[in-house]
């Protein structure tokens, strides 16, 4: 294994976050009854014509700008011709000669992966393979959903790097509002090209391609399997055949496609139903202005302006949903350190993954932290309240009434008097001790214990000091 370099190139497809499809006004929406988000364009009815969605082009430009791509001033759409039942028109509208974006790069921890291009195309319909009696069912709801295809240069040299690349790409697309990348819905799919060569050799090996991997785990396993398979072939004196292989996730292996691709002659030519799109500089600059901060920029801000650690800022920016949440809490309660502590220690242990919606609203979390700061509730009680909100869906207002300062005024004073009266030794300790604060805290603890945390903490401390004098 050590004597070989692995050379990996990725082709990543992401469904773009638009309201309507790329060539018609049907909804871009997942999970509907089959063939209900369809019109003549989606099903390739005779006479139907594609009408390009501006937003789809703008999102690809936006994606390109986050990765330093050059934006072509003229984008051309071509037809890629082949027969397949998920392809209603027997051609896919895609881009070959003049894609929207050229070049660009994504920086990984230890290297830079260059991009070849990003282009816009349409997604295909969905095939559902049922029993032989029923057959294969075709649903064109997904047909025409805008898809960006990003193609890397073969700069990736391990499965780990591939996953790191995909993680960063996914992060950027989500941050930029370009795509939601819902893997489980096929919102991000990856074709992997793998070849191996003798370490240091300039000569590239024969590559194989595995299409439509839809989880990072599959990508990781597929690359390792395929690299090992190729190395084994070479070690045994064989040659690797250039082919498309299918990754079988259930058995963790790649298999040669049973049926060879009948033709890779796609007969691309400019779609005569479409006009090429001129993209003036002003439009690119206008789109650039709408770019939100990217995760690396946010991380920098968290460290430099908020004084967070690298670790903290890395976690907070890993998912856009989380950094959005963090930023919003700050807009109500501007104490980054405190908010970070709560999120990292109390909130994230209650969610399954970082992109999940957090079950306490940013404004409620801010209110809760304010209650702690104002000593209306103790930290311990605040944690309890947080758990009850996030786990049982209880309301902050109700809990506040229950916890904060419900024992107050004369009743509280009476309680403190009783405690002081019943603990003469402690009172003596307080007056003679080198560390009276410790004894003082023992008294506040007693008050909280007696009231099960529901005493007005500020008042309680006031009374204790007064009565201990």
């Amino acid at each position, binding site marked *: 294994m050590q004597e070989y370099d692995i050379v990996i190139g990725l082709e990543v497809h992401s469904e773009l976050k638009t309201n309507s499809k790329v060539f018609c006004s049907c909804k871009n929406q997942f999970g509907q009854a089959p063939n209900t988000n369809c019109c003549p364009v989606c099903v390739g009815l005779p006479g139907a014509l594609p009408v390009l969605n501006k937003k789809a082009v703008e999102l690809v430009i936006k994606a390109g700008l986050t990765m330093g791509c050059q934006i072509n001033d003229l984008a051309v759409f071509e*037809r890629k011709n082949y027969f397949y039942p998920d392809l209603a028109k027997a051609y896919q509208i895609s881009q070959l000669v003049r894609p929207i974006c050229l070049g660009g790069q994504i920086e990984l921890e230890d290297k830079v992966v260059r991009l070849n291009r990003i282009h816009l195309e349409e997604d295909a319909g969905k095939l559902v393979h049922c029993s032989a009696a029923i057959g294969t069912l075709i649903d064109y709801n997904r047909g025409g959903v805008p898809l960006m295809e990003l193609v890397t240069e073969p700069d990736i040299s391990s499965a780990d790097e591939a996953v790191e690349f995909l993680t960063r790409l996914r992060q950027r697309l989500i941050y930029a509002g370009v795509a939601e990348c819902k893997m489980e819905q096929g919102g991000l799919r990856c074709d992997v090209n793998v070849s191996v060569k003798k370490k240091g050799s300039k000569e590239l090996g024969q590559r194989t391609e595995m299409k439509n991997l839809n989880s990072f785990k599959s990508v990781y396993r597929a690359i390792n399997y395929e690299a090992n398979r190729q190395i084994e072939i070479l070690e045994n004196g064989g040659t690797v055949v250039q082919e498309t292989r299918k990754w079988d996730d259930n058995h963790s292996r790649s298999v040669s496609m049973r049926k060879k691709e009948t033709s890779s002659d796609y*007969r691309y030519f400019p779609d005569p139903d479409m006009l090429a799109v001129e993209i003036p500089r002003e439009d690119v600059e206008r789109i650039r202005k709408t770019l939100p901060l990217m995760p690396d920029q946010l991380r920098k801000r968290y460290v430099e302006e908020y004084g967070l650690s690298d670790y903290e800022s890395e976690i907070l920016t890993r998912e856009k949903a989380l950094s959005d949440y963090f930023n919003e809490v700050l807009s109500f309660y501007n104490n980054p350190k405190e908010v970070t502590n709560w999120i990292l220690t109390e909130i994230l242990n209650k969610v399954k993954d970082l992109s999940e919606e957090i079950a306490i609203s940013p404004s409620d979390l801010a209110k809760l932290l304010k209650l702690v700061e104002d000593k209306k509730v103790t930290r311990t009680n605040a944690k309890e309240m947080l758990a009850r909100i996030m786990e049982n869906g209880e309301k902050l207002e109700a809990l506040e009434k229950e916890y904060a300062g419900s024992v107050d005024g004369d009743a509280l004073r009476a309680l403190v008097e009783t405690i002081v009266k019943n603990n003469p030794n402690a009172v003596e300790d307080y007056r003679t001790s080198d560390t009276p604060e410790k004894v003082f805290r023992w008294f506040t603890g007693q008050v909280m214990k007696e009231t099960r945390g529901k005493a007005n903490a500020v008042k309680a401390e006031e009374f204790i000091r007064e009565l201990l004098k």
Partner: protein
Amino acid sequence: MDIGKLSLIELAKAISEQKLTSYEVTKYYIERCQEKSDLNALLEIFDDSLDRASEMDEKIKGGFKGKLAGVPVIIKDNILYKGKKASCSSRFLENYVAQYNSTVVQKMLDEGAIIIARANMDEFAMGSSTENSAYGVTKNALDPSRVPGGSSGGSACAVAAGLAPVALGTDTGGSIRQPCSYNGVVGIKPTYGRVSRYGVVAFASSIEQVGPITKNVKDNAYMLSVLAGGSIHDDTSLKVEVPDYLSYIKGDIKGLKVGVLKEIEEAVKGLEVEKSYKEAVKFLKDNGAEIVEVSIPDFKLTLPCYYIIAPAEATSNLGRFDGVKYSRRSAEAKDVDEIYVKSRSEGFGKEVKRRIMLGNFVLSSGYFDAYYNKAKKLQQKLIAESKKAFENCDVLVLPTTAGEAFKIGAKGGDPVEMYKEDLFTIMANILGTPALSLPFGKGESGLPLGLQIVADRLNEGLIYNVADFIENNGGDYARV
């Protein structure tokens, strides 16, 4: 009133003024359609036509105004009219029922038209005689032993035979103009993009247009004003204002610069049309037009250029007819690959298959640059040449066809001979310019010949003015 003698404009006026009802007009034309069924111009007369006419009469009484209120119209069988069959004269689409209205149909319905029938054509508009129809050849309206031309042969025959005051055709390489010439009627291929193609079954998307076929020039201008205009469903449709084309008709051509192509002078030598063509030029000159000799040096290459671009687009456009989603699926097919191959092989006629094969040849790897890209470059060169020509003239005149309509079966054996039918018409499709054909002169058997007027893009108005002048002042030449 003799309904059959009224022009489209007169008819529309009489109905809107309630001097005639749509019902009686529609009934008259449907009876004509039935009487003349031996022409095989029509594939279907829509059985709800009279009901629609009655409804329209009620609407007109209620104050409805529309340019085509109550007027019967026939459409070519590749234009979608929701709820009605549209077969493109193909076995493949034998039972295809349109699921939506084409833009042109919608525009006509909005103006109150009664669409009464669909007309025969060459399968998928590929052909010049309607002999490629899966439903039998249409006969020439003036001589039933001859072809009506094509591909809009059914539409042109229908208008010539008085089956409707107007019919729609489509023109990819001459498919409106050539049959108009053969049947002695008027037809225009508008500027590319002037009329939306949405809902028109595509053959060669980048060069084809829908256009009206009428008995006279003014009717044609009137009708184009209805059909023209950009569509939100068609990015290639031009989003420019639609003029009232009738307003361009002045009854005068003094000072008009009429271009005569050097290459045409050459090409017509010895052809049946030569004499009429020369008479036409002389006629224009005698009536005050300035005749200018201009040149499009690569004119002769328009034909081969077309036979690369059109089949390339057709092969891709016809891919959707795969037996999976609609219409024909071969009963023999056991798996998906067989569905494709058998449905298509059974459903398409010979000429369609030939063009699909040719299209795949010029697009396939290794040939793409030499053929397809070369043809696209040649198209640019031709456009540049035409621009230069139009710097020196307002319109070009050229023949529509080499001669009069030929006998059914006369060109059966040789596809390339048939292709040459479009020698004079294809130029306008390659250039994207408007071109109209109107009757001018007679052939050896006394059948009409056609004269084409071509102008630069969006200059339909200029064309209509010249054509109307010829029609009204051309005497015997312009009489069919």
